[in-house]
């Protein structure tokens, strides 16, 4: 019968040298690192390939769509022109005169029996809108006209500049009243003037 030895002590070899540890590291950890680096290299190249392909696709898209846009250049210019004209038209419309309310109000105040009436309304870009009204009336009506203009919120600087008796036998006085018009220059929108457009349709 063969004799069996039982060793309860753990076997212990000599501690590994630095070279042996390096050897172990090289055959285990380093191998994994090398594989990972290779995988990274492959991954990076794949990523670059994908990005370059996307970039080329986008460039082709830009080329195609740019060509389509270039082919529509004349239409775009035409639309730009229409837009520019519309903008200018709107601005001109807003900046243009709006004498109608002033005329209506002044005519409401002027007595119907006035003689030698003369009204002059001026739209000056620097000084704004002004008007001068002159004629022959009796003193009371001149005062009433002056007061009406002074009381109105739509006129300012109302001044009776001239007043003189026409002749010794008459009750009439020659007068001149100057004033500034402070009506808003804002005009109604053109779209509300359907009657105007339809009325002039035939003349175009």
């Amino acid at each position, binding site marked *: 019968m063969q004799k069996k030895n039982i060793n309860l002590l753990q076997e212990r070899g000599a501690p590994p040298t630095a*070279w042996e540890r390096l050897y172990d590291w*090289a055959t285990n950890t380093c191998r994994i690192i090398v594989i990972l680096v290779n995988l990274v290299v492959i991954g990076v190249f794949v990523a670059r390939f994908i990005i370059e392909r996307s970039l080329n696709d986008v460039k082709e898209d830009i080329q195609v769509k*740019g060509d389509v846009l270039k082919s529509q250049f004349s*239409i775009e210019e035409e639309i730009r022109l229409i837009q520019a004209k519309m903008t*200018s038209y709107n601005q001109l419309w807003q900046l243009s005169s709006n004498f109608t309310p002033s*005329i209506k109000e002044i005519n409401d105040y002027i007595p119907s029996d006035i003689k030698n009436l003369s009204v002059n*309304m001026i739209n*000056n870009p620097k000084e704004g809108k002004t008007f001068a009204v002159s*004629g022959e009336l009796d003193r009371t009506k001149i005062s009433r006209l002056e007061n009406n203009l002074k009381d109105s919120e739509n006129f300012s600087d109302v001044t009776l500049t001239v007043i003189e008796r026409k002749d010794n036998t008459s009750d009439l006085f020659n007068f001149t009243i100057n004033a500034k018009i402070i009506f808003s220059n804002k005009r109604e929108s*053109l779209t509300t003037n359907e009657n105007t457009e339809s009325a002039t349709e035939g003349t175009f």
Partner: protein
Amino acid sequence: MRIQNPQLRELFKTPQRKTYTTLVLTLVTVGVLIFFTIRPTFIKIADLRKELKDKKTFLERIDKKQRNLNYLIDEKASFTNELDIFSKNLPEEIKGGFIVANLSEIANLQNVDFLSIEFSEEIEEEEEIVFDYASNIKKVDIKINLAGSYNDLENYIEFLERFPRIFDIRNISYSNEDLLDYEGDLDDYKPINCSVDMYTFYWINEIESKEVQE
């Protein structure tokens, strides 16, 4: 494979030496890969991504412009009649005949006598109001003389100021003529003589073309 170089053969003599040699070569290769392949490729990828982002943004702008243009083309097609009328309201030439015809027609509508008209393109220098495309707008000075009743002339001025072809009134003066001083036919008597000085406008095409850029 048998290694011929004796120095190399010495290097691969033992398995351990062989491993160390391979290790060194591998580390050199890894270093070369990192510094000459991975790093430049990462930089290149960063550049490509930036370029891709820019191009995508540009493509989005092209798409948006195309959508807007398509929308405007559709709108233009659906407003052909209105645009035709509009182009008559801001024409590209004076069109004096149309102005006379329109002013005269308005006078007929308002029962006002249209006595005379005078055109001038020589505008006295004054303070210009600045607005977009002002250089494309050309003014024409028009002076008209009218005769009618207060109400009719009021209506005429109102009509003129609402007229789609813009008339910017600069000066209105009117005076009445006494019936006692009137020498003509009584049916033709119009108490008010009115003079209107105004501008109308037309468009000069001087918009600079802008090329569609890539």
